[in-house]
């Protein structure tokens, strides 16, 4: 079977998939489209922060996508093939990347979908093309909708406020009954208060509290009391700040929930920055609520106040393991849109050009990383993780085996382990890590052995 419009129509699961694919036909959504022989692949900027990787075999119409959709083929795969049929020349001849090779190695030939049967439904690419929607003009209905939305917002605001006060009381209870008891029962206690926060519409805050036991257990036993004080302290700061400014977008994000990608892109307050970015690394975390968070850290290679960005996505753990959209060390020009915050960090990619071989050095940084961390802590004191760029130094180990980064001037930062063996034997020309208040989880370093990446997944 070769790739034709008819073939695409035949193997699409239903008309809805074709319609959804039609919304992805804009070239701007595909910063990467390439081909080699009968293979095509691309990256599609969907609703998430990280693009989806899509590959297809034009000879037997097998396909693969990293999105969590259960439809097969998904709208991204259909869109990729549709774009290819419409204009194959837009797909650049290229070497087959490793992630496409992995898929080819694992797939079964002949496993491509046969014509999908949709009872009584005609599937058509032509019908899938988006039509201009008629906008019904009904001012009264619109007014009613707005009033209802306003009431809902007020009710939600009251519920969230009550939830934060509830949390403050809970924090005080944990302290009054003793932190050792809290640590011993952290899982159960945090789960209960998180459930109350969910009921109070404070979803983000609930997730943060629900994940607190994991963060505390990741510390050494002798560090957990101080870790609990830090965690509870940040929560108290956050709830107090939110009640003082409930409409602040960053605080709402931390307590209630994030804006959608579309809302963010449409927000005139959202800072935008076009620059050259380097992918530092990826951290994947499986949460207690069944979601997996995928954080891709980027560094701005152009000197300026906005040094870092993190692309954050969530998907169900049941969707299986997803490969990252980027390769650590990859560099590309892109315009990022940041979620508004006192110290913006989380962002989405608005526009991205193809990866390039730019050899720009890493930005320079102050000799004392604690000064940078102190500034971040003052700007956003409830933030759990803070990225920091370290200057030249060495990774050293205590007699106990505990690892430290040490600057040429003697500044010391404890480093999370395990570390690759080479880390102790390399001259660090610069390093980037995520500081969690106790330890630094390294993401990448420039060394006398070239660029080193660190597996920062948890």
């Amino acid at each position, binding site marked *: 079977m070769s790739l034709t419009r008819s073939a695409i129509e035949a193997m699409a699961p239903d008309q809805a998939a074709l319609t959804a694919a039609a919304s992805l036909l804009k070239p701007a959504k595909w910063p990467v489209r390439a081909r080699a022989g009968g293979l095509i692949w691309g990256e599609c900027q969907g609703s998430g922060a990280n693009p989806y990787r899509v590959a297809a075999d034009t000879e037997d119409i097998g396909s693969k996508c990293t999105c969590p959709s259960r439809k097969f083929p998904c709208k991204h795969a259909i869109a990729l093939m549709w774009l290819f049929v419409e204009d194959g020349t837009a797909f650049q001849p290229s070497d087959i990347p490793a992630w496409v090779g992995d898929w080819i190695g694992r797939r079964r*030939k002949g496993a491509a979908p046969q014509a999908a049967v949709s009872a009584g439904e005609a599937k058509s690419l032509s019908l899938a093309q988006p039509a201009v929607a008629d906008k019904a003009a009904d001012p009264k209905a619109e007014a009613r909708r707005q009033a209802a939305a306003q009431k809902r917002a007020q009710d939600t605001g009251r519920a969230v406020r009550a939830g934060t006060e509830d949390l403050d*009381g809970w924090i005080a209870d944990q*302290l009054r*009954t003793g932190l050792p008891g809290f640590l011993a029962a952290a899982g159960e206690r945090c789960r209960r208060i998180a459930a109350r926060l969910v009921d109070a519409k404070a979803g983000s805050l609930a997730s943060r509290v629900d994940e607190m036991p994991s963060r505390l257990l990741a510390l050494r036993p002798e560090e957990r009391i101080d870790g609990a004080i830090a965690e509870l302290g940040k929560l*108290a700061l956050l709830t*107090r700040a939110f009640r003082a400014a409930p409409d602040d977008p960053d605080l709402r994000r931390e307590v209630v929930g994030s804006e959608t990608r579309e809302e963010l892109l449409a927000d005139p307050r959202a800072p935008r920055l076009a620059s050259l970015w380097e992918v530092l690394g990826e951290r994947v975390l499986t949460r207690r609520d069944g979601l997996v968070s995928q954080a891709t850290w980027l560094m701005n290679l152009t000197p300026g106040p906005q040094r870092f960005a993190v692309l954050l996505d969530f998907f169900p753990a049941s969707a299986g393991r997803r490969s990252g959209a980027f390769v650590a060390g990859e560099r590309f020009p892109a315009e990022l849109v940041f979620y508004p915050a006192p110290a913006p960090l989380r962002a989405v990619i608005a526009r991205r050009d193809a990866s390039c071989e730019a050899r720009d050095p890493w930005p320079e940084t102050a000799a004392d990383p604690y000064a940078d961390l102190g500034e971040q802590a003052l700007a956003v004191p409830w933030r759990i993780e803070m990225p920091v760029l370290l200057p030249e130094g060495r990774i050293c*180990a*205590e007699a*106990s085996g505990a690892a430290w980064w040490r600057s040429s001037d003697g500044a010391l930062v404890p480093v999370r382990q395990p570390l690759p063996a080479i880390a102790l*034997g390399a001259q660090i020309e610069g390093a980037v890590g995520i500081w969690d208040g106790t330890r630094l989880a390294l993401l990448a370093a420039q060394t006398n052995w070239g660029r080193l990446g660190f597996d920062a997944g948890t």
Partner: protein
Amino acid sequence: MQELEAALARMRSAWMAGGSALDHCPDAWRQPVAGHAEAALVALAGHASSVLFRHTPASPIEPRPLLPALALPILPDELRPLFRRILAAKGGPSIEQHLIALIACRGFAVHPSDWLPSPQDDGAPDIYAPWIDWARAESRAKSDDKSDAKAGDQADEATLTVENYEGWSWASRRVALANLRIKDPAAALAIIAAKAAHEPAERRLRLLEILETRLSEADAAFLEGLAQDRSDRVRAIAQACLARLGRTAENSSEATELAAMVEVGKLGLFRSRTRLVVKALKNSAQELRRQQLFKLVGAATLARALGTSELRLVEAAPDGTSDSIDSFIQMMARTGSDSALRALLQVMLADAAPVRHLRALAPRLSANERRTLLPEIIARDTAELDTALLVAGRELGTAPLAPLLASAAYTELSGLLDAFRGEDFRQTPKHNSLGGALNRIALLLDATGAADLITRLGQCGLSPADPRLDLLRLNAALTREKTP
């Protein structure tokens, strides 16, 4: 600051015990926290701790020595993902040693963030000795092991001598001695003779293995001195080396006993050749005894007991049961003279004996001999190419494609590809066998052969992106000639 630190400690203690920290906080905090005491206090305490105080190690720390550079260039960046993928694949760990050796044969070293030898990795190519030393220093630092502690950076010393021996780390000593043995056997013998007694048994064994290269009568006195060595294995190797030199203190009764269990036969009517015949014995107990005797008796001694010489004994390939032939060849490998060994090798090949019997001879072969033999062994080996890989040793990536195309390995590969092209090829053992078969072949072929095979496999329907071709692709891409 000290007052604040003390106050924070008291607050912490209060929360440890359970209770309010209000009475323990700094005076300046009391009024602002009124009404929300505990939550506000923990906010202030947590924030103060994070921005005002720094972590310090419990004991002084110093950086370790930098990982030294190696004599070979590092694998090019564009090939490193391929290397990592091969190592991470299902069959990766089983071919790791071979993979490292192949890359070294082609004149490259692996990037240290992709692979580092372990402290005990004596099997790594010699080029990695500085990294083994570094890993050992790391391991010693963690275990407080002071042995070999005097060994330091020998970068200032160009040549190993008796005087500077202790200044070299073990891995570097071993490599230096091995190289010296080739160039100046007497100088290497002098160092080993002077220092072996001070080394632990495992290292004495490694030193003796070095003496096996260019073994000569000049080594006899030292070897005879090892007759009283406290290690059985050291004594056994010393005796084997002496046997190769025609000097033996073996028990003649054992030789007589073994001679009674074998025969000297003739092969051919005209220009008949002498050969050893090792027929099946009456029972397994006798078979077992014969195998034991082959391990105890030397080649020259057996020949004498049979009324012949070593060289005459190997005029033709031995005849007999497969296990007994293996036992005889292992005896020759252990104790046969260089000339007898090579004569045996030639007749085994000429008489078309199964190549698996040649495995025992591999350790006695030079690098050149391995490379020369390899094409014929590949052509005659079984589909698993076990003998070819063993004989190749570290001389990987040197065989042309032609002998492979005539081999059982290629026949099996073709069969696996036919199955792969089938309509519904599933994850059967055959599917997994394809990767293993391709890896073994990829380790043996030269770069041109690897590239040609990739082309052939593409014509057979295997996608050029198939990860099972990774090792062939790496082989084909490693075209830098090895720096001698």
